[in-house]
């Protein structure tokens, strides 16, 4: 389908069963949807674009906080400002992205000067850009209004849907993970003092299991099966311990109270693990089998300003000083920054 000129209030909205080409702009309040690809030769304003294939906007997107593009394929735009781009395959931006939300299961590439200022990037793959962030943090500290330029937040290594779901669950997950760590420490402490009725082999095994409570990171790297196996082993040992315990209403000997304490902390460790596994299974049922992309990286060709917040997988880094060209990637559970070089990009 060919639309010669603008999609505006006179033309009305566009809905097409195949590809669409618009030779002009898509004006505010309008929508263009197509089962195939959409090509817009002008500008997309505060409009809605939905495509079953790729979307290409030759000029750019000036979304005024309401513009959005959603594509099952790749999104390619000249620039984007105050808009949301959501693509399954990847996002390519010609020059700059300002105060926008960029979501993709693939990579985000900002070509040219590669300016990324304000907003959120959530990608399962890599981000490649030139100048990232702004001097706003220094200006804020001097009293400038925060609404002029937003914070720049980059989250890589997980599909956006999964990231959002985990962020929603994050407060409870954090509590469960914290409870698991505390219970694990208590179990290790009690075992180190010795608990009558717990043999050496069981004690060693429990200490091992207590050292690594299940966390979201554990699940993403080792998988749900490994986590469930850990908790099944805990359940099995705990059932043995509880079988030795008298009714709580009976008078306990000191021997039993040590076993009771161990049982209680083991049970809390089990419950915390179980909660984290349940959330993960809930996410899996929504999204299939999400996996952490450990090789996701942030390539900043030119400059990264203080105040940029970066998350890769579950590791977080707040950039606290002006940096030159750098490559940020995961090393174990931490983000490390290396000097930018074409070689580093080539190797990736």
């Amino acid at each position, binding site marked *: 389908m060919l639309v010669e000129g603008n999609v505006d209030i006179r033309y009305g909205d566009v809905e097409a069963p195949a590809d669409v080409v618009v030779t002009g702009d898509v004006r505010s309040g309008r929508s263009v949807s197509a089962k195939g690809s959409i090509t817009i030769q002008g500008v997309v304003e505060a409009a809605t674009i939905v495509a079953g294939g790729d979307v290409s906007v030759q000029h750019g997107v000036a979304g005024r906080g309401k513009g959005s593009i959603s594509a099952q394929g790749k999104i390619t735009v000249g620039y984007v400002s105050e808009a949301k781009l959501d693509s399954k395959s990847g996002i390519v931006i010609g020059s700059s992205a300002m105060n926008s939300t960029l979501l993709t299961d693939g990579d985000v590439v900002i070509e040219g000067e590669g300016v990324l200022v304000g907003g959120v990037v959530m990608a399962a793959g890599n981000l490649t850009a030139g100048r990232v962030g702004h001097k706003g943090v220094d200006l804020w500290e001097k009293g400038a209004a925060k609404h002029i330029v937003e914070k720049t937040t980059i989250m890589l290594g997980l599909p956006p849907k999964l990231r959002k779901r985990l962020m929603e669950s994050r*407060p409870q997950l954090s509590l469960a993970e914290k409870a698991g760590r505390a219970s694990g420490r208590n179990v290790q402490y009690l075992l180190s003092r010795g608990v009558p009725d717990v043999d050496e082999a069981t004690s060693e095994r429990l200490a091992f299991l207590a050292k690594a409570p299940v966390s979201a990171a554990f699940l993403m790297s080792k998988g749900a099966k490994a986590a469930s196996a850990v908790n099944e082993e805990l359940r099995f040992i705990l*059932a043995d311990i*509880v*079988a030795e315990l008298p*009714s709580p209403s009976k008078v306990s000997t000191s021997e039993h109270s040590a076993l009771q304490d161990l049982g209680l902390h083991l049970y*809390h460790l089990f419950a915390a693990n179980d909660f984290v596994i349940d959330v993960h299974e809930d996410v899996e049922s929504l999204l299939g089998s999400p996996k952490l992309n450990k090789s996701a990286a942030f390539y900043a060709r030119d400059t990264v300003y203080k105040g940029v917040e970066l998350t890769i997988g579950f590791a977080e880094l707040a950039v606290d000083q002006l940096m030159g060209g750098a490559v940020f990637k995961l090393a174990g559970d931490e983000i490390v920054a290396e000097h930018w070089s074409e070689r580093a990009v080539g190797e990736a």
Partner: protein
Amino acid sequence: MSNETAQTNKQRRDFFRREMALPVGAKLFALPGHTKLPPERDLAVRTVNLSAGGLLLATGRTPAAERLCEGALIDFSVSSFGSPLPIRLLGRVVRVEKPGPDELRFAVEFILITPSEADTIVRKVAL
């Protein structure tokens, strides 16, 4: 009076019990003697009464419920106590009742419970 009966009566006296239908999640945790657990461990239960020491559960005569016997362990999850995470309580079946052809009842004592969890239940029961 046998020791066990005396003990049961003592427990009955120890905690104030209140009839209430509390929404709880219940999962079979273990059967005595490491009997193999069924793949489906969720139990569809309703609470008949509750105390800080335990609760009385009612269920239909489902295959999972039919397997419950004295000594079986049940893993409870209670979300309605206002805590940010569900409260988890491990209980042991101390008595099985069959009040009718379609119903089973299980008296369960909490075997692993912290003083603060017991206090939360006491306050719930007292309200």
